[in-house]
């Protein structure tokens, strides 16, 4: 699964730790999502979408 989390986070000038705090997850989790090593659960994906005010499919796209 590809995602735009790093791009969206950088666009808001947040550090990984800041985003992690806003999502109530660890910084490692944010990093793992950004590097594609971990696909978040549906509730966490919804939390990301809510935070960036976007639809989930605007953040996450399936591998081609």
């Amino acid at each position: 699964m590809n995602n735009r989390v790093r791009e969206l986070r950088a666009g808001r000038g947040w550090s990984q730790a800041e985003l992690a705090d806003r999502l109530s997850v660890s910084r490692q989790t944010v990093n793992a999502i950004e590097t594609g090593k971990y696909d978040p659960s549906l509730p966490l994906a919804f939390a990301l979408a809510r935070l960036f005010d976007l639809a989930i499919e605007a953040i996450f796209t399936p591998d081609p």
Partner: protein
Amino acid sequence: MSTLRTAPHLRDCFLAALGYVATTWVCIGLLRHALVDAPTVLRAAIALLPVVPIVLATRAVVRLVRAGDELQRRIDLEALVIAGVVVGLACLTASLLEAADVIELSARQALIWIFPAQWIAYVLARAWTRRRYA
């Protein structure tokens, strides 16, 4: 969620492990020297003292896992599975070699090491699994 939420539980795990080593060392010393002729009830009570820090360690690990987020729980689950399989395979291998008289294994020594081996394997597997997601 920052590491601050899990840090106290990690500290508790470490302290409980230290407590286990200390109580085991003291209890074995007492049972082999000072309490050789003590009543069975007292010897049993002293022998079971190391169970207390192990129970505390177990509680700390449960709290550590519950304080973690979804990725940390996945890491813990993978680490527990790896630790269970590794220790189980080690026990099976050792018992098969013992049955074939290739090695000599004292049941007393083997039993006392299974639980600590499980924890050591879990800690190592957790560190290895965490690196996969770093």
